[in-house]
């Protein structure tokens, strides 16, 4: 029976809610493995685990509960160990590294901020900055929308102007939050965001961060900002060097299939 690993934290073991379950259908009960001052949050691994919605949610939920009380090193989704014994060995072998990471992240949480453009507002911004665009737009409008070619020409210019605005607005966000953050990490660029920023902040500084983001939202109405947190420090745990220690004899699976 292989073991699913959610995260690693420090002893003493956190108090887990009665009946806390993780991945699987039916959801497998979350257990604690303790070795050498470290605690791994684990459960039995379901056969044929897939990255489905409920599994991702279960993973995040287990970590969120622990993260509410203390720092935890969140595993990436889908980390499987041969068995409990192997998890224990990993804790022992890499105790120093894990403890260092836990020290570094102590008292801190991650907030993820995604920004996208409010369409109408950003059009106002680019029109304001480029009077010739505004003039062209109004000329088209006066001509009942303009010809196909005129529409295309205007649309292309506006699209480019809006696109050129993206890094500018991404920088606005970064500058707003950077002074409050212990660390900032650009999140993976995925569809739908002009910037995807994760910040590591002291738990106590969370309100300050939220205020700063809210202020930015008010002063830059072209920005649609979505804040999520507090989260376990997903973006600020260090990946272990795959070449560093292969003694455990289990190959790292490629992250992408």
């Amino acid at each position, binding site marked *: 029976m292989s073991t699913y690993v959610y995260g690693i934290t420090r002893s003493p073991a956190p108090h887990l809610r009665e009946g806390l379950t993780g991945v699987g259908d039916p959801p497998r009960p979350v257990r604690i493995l303790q070795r050498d001052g470290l605690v791994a949050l684990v459960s039995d691994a379901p056969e044929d685990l897939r990255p489905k919605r409920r599994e991702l949610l279960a993973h995040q939920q287990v970590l969120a509960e622990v993260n509410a009380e203390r720092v935890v090193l969140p595993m990436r989704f889908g980390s499987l160990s041969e068995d409990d014994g192997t998890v224990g060995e990993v804790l022992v072998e890499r105790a120093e590294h894990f403890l260092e990471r836990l020290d570094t992240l102590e008292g801190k949480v991650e907030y993820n901020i995604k920004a996208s453009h409010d369409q109408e507002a950003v059009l106002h911004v680019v029109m304001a900055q480029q009077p010739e665009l505004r003039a062209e737009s109004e000329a088209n409008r006066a001509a009942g929308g303009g010809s196909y070619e005129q529409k295309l020409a205007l649309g292309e210019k506006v699209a480019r102007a809006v696109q050129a605005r993206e890094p500018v607005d991404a920088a606005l966000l970064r500058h707003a939050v950077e002074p409050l953050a212990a660390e900032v990490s650009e999140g993976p660029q995925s569809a739908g965001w002009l910037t995807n920023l994760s910040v590591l902040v002291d738990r106590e500084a969370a309100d300050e961060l939220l205020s700063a*983001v809210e202020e930015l939202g008010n002063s830059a109405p072209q920005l649609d900002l979505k804040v999520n947190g507090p989260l376990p420090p997903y973006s600020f745990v260090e990946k272990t060097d795959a070449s560093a220690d292969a003694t455990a004899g289990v190959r790292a699976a490629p992250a992408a299939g």
Partner: protein
Amino acid sequence: MTVAPAQQQGGGTGNLYDVLELVLDRGLVIDAFVRVSLVGIEILKIDVRVVVASVDTYLKFAEACNRLDLESGRNKSPGLPDVVGQVTESGAQGKTKGALSGAAQTVSDAFQQARDESQEGGTRRRTTTRKKEERE
């Protein structure tokens, strides 16, 4: 502007999609552990710029500009220069809110279709894969 602090307790799923890529792409990786296959998940990383540079997109932008109420923008952006004098007073003022929201919808398509609309509940459309995952 939406500030949506995650609910740590209570099992709300509302924020899951906003942290999905963190759960999948970030977090600790230990070489002594195996990772489950994530086939099909990579599609989350579609580059939106491909979408932006298309004729359809240009036309939608043009359409949105055509409907844009530049007068109301003056309130929103105090810095808006008054360069082009005769803003079609009749035209601009005559535009109704309905027309505007229509424009917003048009551009919304022209922009990133994957945009998260968690506030509207189940109307998210990040990717087909995502929809698929959502059903499961």
